[in-house]
């Protein structure tokens, strides 16, 4: 039972991470290769607060704000550079976060932050992670339906045209980064309390790629597709436990094959088979 609970908890966290990246990259069109940094910022900030004695709820909220705050800064960077330049800059943000944390004694450097108080039990974390995932899912569906979603679409499809019809492109980019990174911070806060330990390596480039992979395997821009992608890629290593040694080979190969044969991901597959577009 505990095994399924912990898998479900990670599935919930991954759904939050994937949906939050989808908001930035899928909805607003700003490719990010450094999303794990915001996951990490949330985790570290929440960990510091909790260790200092703040209650978990407050710590997680601070984690979200810190991640979102740095998200805004990254959003400003996205105003200067676009597309492939932005992809590499966000990748740089990830490396910069990691390289800075590794060297800061007050963040525990390589040892990370340990002995984070853990007020909930396994059921509590599973409920929290899944609850968070549902909340971010509802938010995503709402954003898509709201005028914000349409304005994001305009920014993603043609920035200049969007500007000429009065859309505050900069404002929307920053908003997308803020919402997306704050949600990643939420996942980080939950993660920190659950594992009671944060170390830099948990938030490296591979983690960023993993999150991006969930988004594109699900189908970038499609909320339900991304949820499916996140759940699938969380379960996959578990289902493949019996091929221990070939796990990454299969994982990488699958990414390659999905992009090669169904670049619109699961959502594209559903569209092709049923003729319906996923939300």
């Amino acid at each position, binding site marked *: 039972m505990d095994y399924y609970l912990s898998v479900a908890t990670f599935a919930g966290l991954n759904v939050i991470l994937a949906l939050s990246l989808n908001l930035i990259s899928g909805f607003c069109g700003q490719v990010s290769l450094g999303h794990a940094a915001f996951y990490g910022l949330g985790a570290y900030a929440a960990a510091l607060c909790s260790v200092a004695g703040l209650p978990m709820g407050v710590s997680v909220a601070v984690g979200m704000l810190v991640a979102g705050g740095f998200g805004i800064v990254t959003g400003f960077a996205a105003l200067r550079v676009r597309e492939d330049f932005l992809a590499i800059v966000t*990748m*740089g943000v990830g490396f910069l976060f990691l*390289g800075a944390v590794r060297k800061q004694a007050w963040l525990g450097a390589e040892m990370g932050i340990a002995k984070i108080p853990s007020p909930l039990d396994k059921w509590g974390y599973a409920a929290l992670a899944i609850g968070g995932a549902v909340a971010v899912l509802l938010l995503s569906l709402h954003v898509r339906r709201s005028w914000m979603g349409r304005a994001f679409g305009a920014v993603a499809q043609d920035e200049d045209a969007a500007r000429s019809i009065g859309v505050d492109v900069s404002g929307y980019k920053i908003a997308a980064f803020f919402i997306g990174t704050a949600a990643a911070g939420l996942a980080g806060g939950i993660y920190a309390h659950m594992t009671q330990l944060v170390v830099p390596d948990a938030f490296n480039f591979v983690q960023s*790629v993993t999150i991006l992979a969930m988004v594109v395997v699900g189908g970038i821009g499609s909320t339900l597709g991304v949820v499916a992608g996140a759940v699938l890629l969380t379960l996959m290593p578990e289902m493949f436990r019996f091929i221990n040694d070939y796990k990454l080979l299969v994982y990488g190969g699958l990414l*390659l094959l*999905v992009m*090669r044969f169904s670049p619109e991901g699961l959502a594209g597959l559903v569209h092709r088979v049923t003729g319906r577009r996923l939300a």
Partner: protein
Amino acid sequence: MFYLELLLVGLVWGCTYAMMALGLTLVYGLLRILHVAQATVFTLGAYVGLLVANHTGSLAGAFVAAALAAGLLGPLVYRFIYRPILDKPPFVALVASIGLLIAMEDGFRLLFGPYGLSFAKNTWFTTAVGFGGLSLNLVQVWIAVAAVVLLSLFALFATRTRAGVAWRATVSDPSIAESFGVGVSGVRHTSFFIASVLAGVAGVLVGLLNNLVEPGMGSVISYKGLAIIVLGGLGNVPGTLLASLLLGVVESFGTVYLGKLLDRDAIAFLFLILVLMIRPQGLLGKAR
């Protein structure tokens, strides 16, 4: 003397980056693809070179074999992975490329073992060359030589040969080039071939430099390569070379003076971000 040594070290690093980044910028210039999987080509070159060197004892044979193996793999990657998805959004090729990298990294581990392999005989590695108080090992000297020679050959190719001119025409506008009878497909295959040969040779050199060929050896240099081509101004060849050397030197000095605050990768990317915030089009890129 200390500064001179750091400068020299940085320039040698810059040379390895340049051999990797030039190929990346070729591919980007043609196809707008961030070819992360070039790391796979690099690693393949290193393994083939090492196996040939250890079995035949011939380093020359190792380089030729590595160049051929890499030169074969690159165009295959283009033909069977990138070409069918060229009309998709750019992240599709990027993710496919990352997928290939992850899979192949583990493929190398399964094939050749996780510990990495060392050259049985590596005299360049153990030979120190001193001049005026500075000392390098022979591999470092050869890396600088190889970079200069290969890049000069490339410059000759691009400016003096018909294929090179066709390549430049295709970079600036594929449709116009096609209407002048330039075979775009041929140019693309050629470019992947050249990029891959450079990467394969670089792989053997870095393998010799570390005396270690390991499954994951390509990934970091490949990410740095991406940073470099962006820094240079995407698709801009002189910019790429300048950025390679500059990044090597920044890392070499940065690790000494900023080492307490940031690690080497972070220093490189911080430099990249700062430059891009001031010049969003990269060092030598054209403003849009």
